[in-house]
């Protein structure tokens, strides 16, 4: 039986969120479906390009830590 894989399932597959049986099917049929590959490559490209890892500044983090300690102190 040929199971019709939708783009929604490919999206879930990329993010490791589809069922193991669907994952296995996609992996088995991937080479025979260039459109799937193209879509997965595109998702990966956007994923990689949008990835940023900004850090809040250290002063801000210190202020939050002080606040967390102060709250603890007040409650005692």
């Amino acid at each position, binding site marked *: 039986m040929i199971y019709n894989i939708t783009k*929604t399932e490919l999206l879930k597959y990329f993010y490791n969120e589809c069922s193991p049986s669907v994952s296995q099917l996609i992996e088995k049929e991937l080479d025979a479906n260039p459109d799937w590959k193209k879509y997965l490559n595109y998702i990966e*490209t*956007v994923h990689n*390009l*949008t990835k940023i890892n*900004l*850090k809040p500044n250290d002063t801000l983090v210190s202020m*939050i830590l002080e*606040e967390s300690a102060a709250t603890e102190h007040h409650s005692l």
Partner: protein
Amino acid sequence: MATTMISDGVLIKHYTEGNQGAFETLLKRHKNRIFSSIYALVGDRYIAEDIFQETFIKIIHSIRTGKYNHEDKFLPWAMRISRNMCIDSIRQRKRLPIVVDSEGNDILNNLGIFEKSQEEMHIENDEISMLRKWIWELPEEQREVLVLRNYADLSFKEIAVVTNTNINTCIGRMHYALINLRKMTQKNSVRVK
């Protein structure tokens, strides 16, 4: 030897029992993802820092007053708080009148209030700045799913909880966000490698 990471739920429990170091670990574990997501949603470092601080003050207050009951679902819960603050901030900014000088320039820009940090300048100068700009042009609900999935690393199921929708709506929005980004790249004759 393999080390086991203490779960968020356990860290929160330790913090409520008076272990300040547990909160520090929790903050350090999630600060970059939460901050990056806030920044991606509001697009301004200073506003992002304000929201980040307010988010954590609310988190501290909720934990200390015993209102935290999400066990190991700390990140989706924190993202829900910050996401609501981001929405409020965006709505507030939309209502702000733009005051211009005699040459028609926004005077706030001239005052240097929105001056970009070196980090932002770097981001804007690199090859992905165009894509980031287009993400900003996506409909709000599509941008939100893309940011929560790619920046905060939440699952679609968690995003559904954060945004009060269902998983299929979230996946649909992500799919349309990708389609729209592709259309923008094609329209602007830019080839995304």
